[in-house]
């Protein structure tokens, strides 16, 4: 588990997993998409409490290995400002057979999204911004006083 402030390079990360006993590789990437809940997204920012994010991420990866007979798994998450199309998170898993690789990859991304101290702030085309999942965190900020 790593937190990086520079571009994630999924292919280099995939190459780090290579093992001649592996028959299956499943990779997941979360990309910054241009819309969310009907609003046009301009870019976004991840705030990460790195120490605990790494610790909890390592725990998630260990759990995935206990639940599924995989060979290797890793995860890298971005911090900082990201533009549309950038890779925000990468998860890669290798195993002898594909069942386990799919299941473990899915487990890791699901847990990463809900357990790690990582926060996402979306900046919209209309100038508004808001923290995702933070429905009642007072009002979302608005550039224009409306």
């Amino acid at each position: 588990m790593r937190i990086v402030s520079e571009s994630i390079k999924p292919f280099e990360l995939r190459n780090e997993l290579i093992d001649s006993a592996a028959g299956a590789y499943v990779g997941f990437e979360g990309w910054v998409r241009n819309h969310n809940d009907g609003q046009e997204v301009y870019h976004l920012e991840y705030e990460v409490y790195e120490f605990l994010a790494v610790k909890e991420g390592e725990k998630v990866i260990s759990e995935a290995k206990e639940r599924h007979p995989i060979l290797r798994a890793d995860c890298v998450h971005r911090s900082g400002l990201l533009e549309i199309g950038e890779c925000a998170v990468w998860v890669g898993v290798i195993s002898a057979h594909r069942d386990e690789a799919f299941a473990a990859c899915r487990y890791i991304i699901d847990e990463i999204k809900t357990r790690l101290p990582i926060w996402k702030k979306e900046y919209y085309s209309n100038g508004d911004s808001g923290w995702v999942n933070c429905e009642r965190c007072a009002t979302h900020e608005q550039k224009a006083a409306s």
Partner: protein
Amino acid sequence: MKKKITVRYFAVFREQSGLAQELVTMEADTARDVFHGLKDRHGFGEPIGHCKVAINDELSDWDAIVNDGDTVFLFPPVAGG
């Protein structure tokens, strides 16, 4: 007895409090007491059930005891990935 506690704020809590961290002196048995003792002052709107807490760099729960000198991390709803 009052305790000296370092509180760290993240994301919307950091923005709402205007602070990354502060040293508070307060009556508090649990992490829940710390949260409730600070939420009105800083205008935190999110229900505690949507939030998480860590004490001294360990994820914890709201009923965990806080001791004098502890660092309490207040985490608004997370959104990785």
